[in-house]
Structure formats: C-alpha cells, structure tokens
C-alpha cells in the first residue's frame, strides 16, 4: 500500500517513474498539449482524425449553442458522388438482377468514419477497388446470363437481347434514364464485342454496366442547385431501404412529380412506414451504438462462461430490434431511447440478464421494471462492446457516451505521454485501478470528463450483466457528467446517466447531428450548421415522432438543394 502511494505521488509530481505503473511520463516538465489545429479552416482539408480539429469542435458548439444567427443562411447540402457500400451494392444486385449469391465479401471493405460506413470522403476508388469490382461484375454477369429471360423479354436473338438489356437493365442499374448518345454507345459496345468475341459479348455488356461510375456511385449532385427527380428517388430509396427505387418511385421520378413537396413527403412517409425501413434503423444503430462491435472482441470463457455465442447473437439482435421498436412505436420519442424499461429480446437473454421474459403484441420482450437497466445504455451489446476481454473499460465507455451520444470527441492523449493500462489487482476494483491514472495532473483535465461518465456505469460488468459488487467490495457507481450544462450533474449508475441524457439538450441535438451525418454521408461543415440547427430546434420541441423526424431530415431543403 505504501509503495503504491509513493509511486502515485511521484507520478503526480511529474518525476519519471521507474516502474511501469500508471501514466509514464517520458520527460520531466511535461505539459499537456492542445490537440493539433486543422490545416486551414475547412474541416475537409484537415489531416486530423475526424472530430478532433478545432474547426470541427467549433461547428459542434455552434450547433449546440442557443445564440446563433441563422436568418437567411443558405441551407444547401454538398453535391456528392456516394460510393455504394457493400450492403447497398449487394441489395442493388439482388433487386435489379435477382442475384442469389452473396458478393459482399468480395466487394472492398467500407471505410468507417466515426462509426459510419457511408462516408463520401472515405468512399474513394483505389486500384484494388477497380480490380475487385471488375471481378465481381464478371461473376455477377456469369451468374445471371443463363436466366436472362427472367430479367428481360429475350428471345434467341442475342442482338435483340442486348438491346433489351440496354433499355431495361441499364437505366435500372444506373438509376436514371439513358441519354440518346449513351444508348448508342452501349449498343455499339455490344456490337463490337459480338464481332470480336461473340461468346463474351453479353458478359462484357453486363460487366460494363456494373463497373461504370454511374453504377458504383449514387449521384447526389443536382441540376441548377437541386437534386434531379431520379436523384431524389434514389436518395429516398437508398436512405430508407438501402436499395434501388421501386416501381412507384420510378414512375414519380419519370414524371418529375416526386419533387412536388406533398408527393415527396408522402413517398418519404410510405418508405418509412414499410418494414423495409428496418434497414436504415439498423444501419444507423450500428453506427451510433456500435453494437456490432461485440463480434470484434472476445470475452474470457473462464470468467464469463454464461457469455456464449448464442448470448452474443441474442444481444446483437436485442440491440437492433429494440432500436427499431423504440424508433417506430406509437409515441416514439427521444427520451424513451434512454428511459425504456424493457427491450425486445429472447427469453434466453432475459434469463441471462435476470430480467422478466414477457410478450408485447407477439414480440418477445424483456422487462426490466425490477432492475436498474434502462434504454440503450442497458443493452448488453453496448456494455460488452465498450469493455475488454476480462473487465470493463471505464475510459472506453466514457468515450463512447461523450463521442456518440454527446458529439464531443475527447482530445487525443497528449504528445509524449506513454499510455499504459492498469495492471490487474485482485484487491482493487476496476474503478480503483483506473482512477490512479486519472489522478495524474497530466491526465486529469481530460479524464475528469471521461471518468465521470465511465465510472458511473460500473454497475454493469464486461458482459452486460448488472452487478453490485467487485473484488469483494460494493460497486461505486457514482458518476458526474462534466461540461454539458450550467453545472456538473451527479448520478448513480447507468440508469442515472440515462435519466440525464434523456432530457439533455446536448444529447438531443447530437442525435440530430448524427442522423444528419448518416443521411448526408459526411461530417458537418460550416454550411450545414444552420440546417442542422433548424431540424434540431424542431426535434427538441418534441412535436415530431421519430418517423416524422426522419421524413423531415430527408426532405429538408438542405438535402434537396446541393452546392459545391
């Protein structure tokens, strides 16, 4: 005990520690550095990781602040080409070409930015992308060739078939009508191929359609400052359902009436109402809550024998189904995301949590009325994904809440600081071991915020089970939310934190910002601030249900209008 105390004191006075314990300082007279500023004021040019530059923090402040003059501010989104994600690519091939094989593993990996897989800046095509797309295109062509008659009315005349493919499949794959020169070029492409390599001509034509930038990118560029009817139809369809527009949307795009506001709203509502909108809800949940990350880590089978593969799968299902339910149930609202005292989960999972398995309109429901498990912070998948193999990680949990729920990206560890995780110690709780690090002055300025949240969630263990004790002591789950409001807010346990977040202005406006990022496919810029504010103001007022919020987001002028 005395030895540890001495080391802590030595570290606190910035003397180089001789042993690996806590924060090791590389050199004396250590100073905490501010995070590096972005190159220039445009966050797009920043070389810093997303969210960490001073310019980006300023934008979040503007979104959160009560005093920003947005009168007459233009609200146009960014003209962009959005690379199809793996899911979107597969869904498109499935719905247009009726492919049965799963090509997702052969399509390049989506690059994740702050949780999102659909970031337009990250969605760039390298040479290995081109090679992969070419191979997949050829494979798809070979898969569907024998059954082309299912897709186009095709007789035995291969040339006529080619024209049917051009007229039928090309516009569907490219998600817009062909221009006359395009049609001519495609027909000529086939004819040339048929002359030089007749056996390969059809495959070439199909492959040529699938490696075109017109297929690989979803155009959200606009004409004369607004999305075209076909772009709007595509945008709605990929947003809600992750796939090409259906016949009804295509009709409205063809006539142009999709851009009439009542029609646009009605279509957005139709898509949101359909069960197929589970697509967008699950994709957003994966980005916002990171629940799929439980598959990236493992848990100690000796410490957590109950955490089986089945439970892991059940948790992932619980996270997505609960989010879908809370977003679409009657009276859906922000507070219920954090305060709901039940989840949609299996009976096995109910047993694992010691919750009560019940039913609600034929849905398997787990009731937590008798336990302190509430909302998304009570989802096993989130609690497990923010923990390590053998124990919780309060810093990671704090980071998750700050970054994902409150849109505050903590600054990176100061330069020159060597980060060492705390050694195991059976006599100390996780909180006690981690608290040593945070007590060091070089660390405490940031850790005040991280720890305040993370330590307050220690009432749930590394595999999402509620606990009252650890290492033979009572759990100390007292926490503080620092820096979001007029004063620091104290709470007890994850449920206590959830109470605060349910009513938090910051959390609500962050939720809107996160959805804006998902819908637009990029981190916000100066020109997005007023649009986000106007949607956030309405969201905060509580006038909209969640479906209404999503409809508003996707039909908002900032989405329809596009600038450079």
């Amino acid at each position: 005990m005395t030895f540890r105390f001495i080391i802590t004191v030595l570290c606190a006075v910035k003397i180089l520690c001789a042993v690996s314990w806590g924060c090791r300082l590389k050199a004396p007279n250590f100073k905490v550095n501010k995070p590096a500023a972005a190159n220039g004021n445009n966050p797009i040019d920043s070389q810093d990781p997303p969210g960490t530059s001073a310019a980006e923090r300023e934008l979040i402040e503007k979104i959160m602040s009560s005093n920003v003059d947005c009168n007459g501010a233009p609200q146009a989104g960014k003209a962009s080409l959005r690379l199809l994600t793996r899911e979107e690519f597969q869904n498109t091939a499935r719905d247009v070409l009726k492919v049965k094989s799963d090509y997702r593993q052969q399509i390049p990996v989506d690059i994740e930015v702050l949780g999102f897989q659909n970031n337009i800046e990250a969605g760039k095509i390298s040479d290995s992308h081109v090679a992969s797309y070419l191979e997949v295109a050829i494979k798809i062509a070979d898969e569907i060739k024998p059954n082309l008659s299912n897709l186009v009315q095709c007789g035995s005349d291969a040339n006529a078939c080619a024209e049917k493919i051009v007229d039928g499949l090309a516009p569907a794959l490219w998600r817009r009508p062909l221009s006359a020169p395009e049609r001519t070029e495609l027909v000529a492409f086939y004819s040339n191929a048929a002359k030089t390599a007749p056996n390969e001509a059809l495959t070439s034509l199909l492959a040529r359609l699938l490696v075109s930038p017109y297929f690989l990118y979803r155009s959200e560029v606009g004409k004369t400052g607004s999305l075209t009817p076909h772009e709007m139809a595509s945008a709605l369809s990929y947003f809600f359902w992750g796939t090409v527009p259906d016949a009804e949307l295509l009709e409205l795009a063809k006539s142009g009436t999709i851009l009439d506001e009542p029609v646009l709203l009605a279509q957005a509502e139709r898509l949101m109402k359909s069960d197929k909108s589970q697509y967008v809800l699950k994709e957003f949940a994966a980005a916002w809550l990171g629940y799929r990350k439980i598959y990236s880590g493992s848990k100690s089978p000796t410490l957590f024998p109950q955490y089986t593969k089945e439970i892991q799968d059940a948790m992932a299902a619980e996270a997505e189904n609960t989010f879908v339910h809370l977003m679409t149930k009657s009276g859906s609202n922000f507070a219920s995301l954090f305060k709901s005292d039940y989840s949609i989960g299996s009976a096995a999972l109910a047993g694992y949590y010691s919750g009560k398995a019940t039913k609600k309109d034929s849905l398997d429901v787990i009731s937590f009325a008798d336990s302190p498990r509430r909302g998304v912070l009570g989802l096993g998948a989130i609690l497990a994904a923010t923990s390590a193999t053998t124990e919780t990680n309060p810093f990671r949990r704090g980071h998750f809440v700050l970054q994902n729920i409150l849109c505050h990206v903590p600054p990176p560890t100061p330069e020159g600081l060597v980060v060492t995780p705390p050694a195991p110690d059976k006599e100390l709780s996780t909180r006690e071991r981690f608290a040593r690090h945070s007590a060091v002055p070089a660390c405490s300025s940031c850790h005040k915020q991280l720890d305040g949240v993370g330590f307050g969630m220690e009432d749930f263990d590394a595999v999402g089970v509620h606990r009252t004790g650890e290492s033979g002591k009572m759990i100390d789950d007292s926490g503080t939310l620092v820096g979001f409001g007029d004063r620091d807010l104290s709470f007890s346990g994850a449920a206590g934190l959830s109470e605060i977040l349910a009513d938090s202005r910051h959390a609500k406006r962050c939720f809107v910002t996160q959805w804006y990022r998902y819908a637009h496919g990029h981190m916000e810029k100066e020109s997005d601030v007023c649009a986000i504010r106007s949607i956030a103001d309405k969201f905060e007022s509580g006038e909209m249900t969640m479906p209404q919020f999503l409809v508003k987001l996707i039909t908002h002028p900032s989405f329809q209008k596009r600038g450079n």
Partner: protein
Amino acid sequence: MKPILKEISRRNLFRYLGNSAVALPFMRTLLETQAFGEVVRKRAVIYYYPNGNIPEEFFPRNLGSDFTLPRISEPLQGIRDDIILMKNLDFVGSTHEESMNYAMTGMERFKAGISIDTVLGDMLKEGVSLPVLRLGVFSQIQGQPNYRTASFFAPGQPSQIEDNPTRAFQNLFGDSTSQAIGLSTSMRKSVLDASLGDLRNLQSTMGSIEKVKLDLHVESVREIERRLQTGAAGDGMASQCSKKLKNPTVFEDKGERTSPWYRPENFATVVDLNTEIALQALACGATNVVYIQNSHSVGSMPFANGAPSARGDDHHHTSHYNEFKTRDDHIANQRYFMTKFAELITGMKAIKEGDKTLLYNSCVMAWTELGDSQAHNVRDMASILAGQAGGYFKTGRIVDVARAKQNRVLVSMLRAFGSNAEVFGNPSFGSGILTNLQG
C-alpha cells in the same frame, strides 16, 4: 533482366500527396529524382507482426557481427548473416494504434499520409502486373478500424488487404482448376475503357465537384489497364516459379458469419499460405513489393504453447506479460512470428537469380508497433531488416541507430531503391539515411 527507368509523373504524385503541406519536401525530392538505370530488379517486402516485443529478449548484448541471439530472436539464427538488427530505434505514438498508423507513413497521431509500400510499389511497378501485393491474416477483423491500418494507398485512405489466401492466389495466378468463366484480357480492357469514357463524361459535367474522387478513380482504372497489359504474371525468373501452392488448402466463401480464413484454427495455415504466395508472386515476377500483415495492433487471436490455436489465450493479453500470463508465454508467442519470418527469408534465399538470390536483391523489413509490450512504449523497436537490396545494405550485424526514428529507416529503404528522398512522413522526425546500415 530489364533496366528499370522510373520517372515519377506529376499525375502520380497528385494521387499521393493531396493537399498535404507536410508532404511538400518529399514532393520536392521525388521530383528531383533522376531516372535511374538498374541492371537488377530490386524487391521490397514489409512484414508486420503484432503486439510488440521484449527488447532484452530480442536484442543481443553487443553490436557488430559477433552476437548471440536471445530467446525471442533465436529463431533468426539460421538467417543471421542476412539480417540487420537496429538497437535504439524509436517509433512515434502514445498507443498501439497511433504507432500502427505511424510505422509505414512516418505520420503521427493518425495524420493522413501515404505508406511506404504504396510508394515503393509505384516506384517499382514497371513490368509487373501488381504494384503491391497485400496479404493479411485476420487483418481486417477485430477491434477498431484504426487499430488495423498501417498501409494507405492515398493520404488517409486505408489500403485493401486480402485475408483470404485462396482469393489472393486466384487473383495472382488465376484459377486453373475451374472452367473458363470470366472474360478475356482484351474484353476486360474494353470494359475498363468504357468506364473511362463514362468517367470522362462525368468529369466534364461535374467540373470541380468531386474532382479528387474522380481523378483518383481514373488513375486507378488506368493502373488496372496497365496491369492487364503487362500480363497476369511476368516471365518466371526462377525455376521456383511454379504458380502452384504446395499446400493448396482452399478457403471457400460460403457466406458464413465467420469465414473459414477467420477461424482461429486456420490462423497458422493462412500464415504459411501467405508465405508461399508471397514467394511465388516474387519468383514469378507478378509483383515487386509485398506487404504481409499478421493480424494488427491489439490483435487478440488465441495462442497456446507458443502457436496459434483454436482455443488459447488472447495474444494481446499475453503480450502484457506478468499480468495475464507469464513472460515466457509472450516470448513463446513472439518466437512463433520470428520463426515464420525466418521461413520467409529462407524461402527468398532459395530463389536463385543469376549468381545471386531473390533475397540478395531485396530489402525486407519486419516490424511491430510497440517496443516493450508490457511497458507499452515505442522505444527499442524490434524491427528486422533482411536482404542486401542488391548490395546496398551490409547485413549480418547489430547496429546502434542512436534513437533515430522510423522515418529514417523508411528513407533508407527508399534510397536503397534509388530514390533521392531525404525525408518521409513528418520531416520533424528526422531526415537522411542511417549510414551505418551500409557498413
């Protein structure tokens, strides 16, 4: 052996440099590079192993050529004449993942940069179908995305790495067993040409909108066309070019939640297959640059008795020796990677090229992201240089690089391949070559 003339065009540079002010000095030196004539084709291999090392169990006590390898580096005994170990080498980073992102770019704290494999690949792509072959084992799964990334094809853009060796091999040499599906080379070129036409039309309507994206796309298509033109694989330079695998384990993608090449019981098989594939790719002249990534920082694959295993202890946990398992356990685990690295080097030495060997004509660099795994620092990095790069490096020695940073190792590599570069990545981390690598 054909001469290699390399002039780095402005257009290629654009693809790499973006708007990075930091890269400007690099740009200047690359532009000053003269076309050089080399008689022999040089190759580069970069080999990553996870979770750090234990310096006192890796580095011999003394400098020079008369050294005794301690326990972790002991598996390198058979290749000791062909390696250089660098004492007092440092990386930059506060965490596993910062160091992972730094090691091949020379850029700190996740700042955007292009990595050495991409640069070397572009320098050496004349006459090969694939500028860089990137093979992984469990490299694209587990953990956060930035833990897994060391290679970037453009600033801030992670390179794709192939974790399925079956697919990697098929992409290199084609699937000789299946029926002829697919398209001929000339038809593939037509398909790509047509996409270039689409890109041109799109660019003309877009003006400055998404210019960077479309320019990069055009470059990428042109690169694949160049590859098609060069042919699937060059003339095998050695009888060792068989375009066949000795152990043709086939990993099929049946759309399962855990693909077979990601199952722990197959980890070791994938490692061995990657070694074979790398050797074949180099022997057959399919590429001049190979990057092998064994897992990634904080890699958690199970190990038992010093080898990958279906059930075992988390590799990363064990690397925190004295906390979860023992020091001996971590030593045993890292001996595994040393053994595998030695097998790769031995394989390269067995490939004859005239009166020399593939290894002689190559520069190989092995690295890991932490210095001492327990202390969690980035000092005394257990990197290994192997091969003589056509006589540029003098091997069989332990040298002291006096706290130089990795940036200068990367510069030394570039210079071994004929570049005039003085800096790589963040210039404040040092400039110039490490002269003692040359003897």
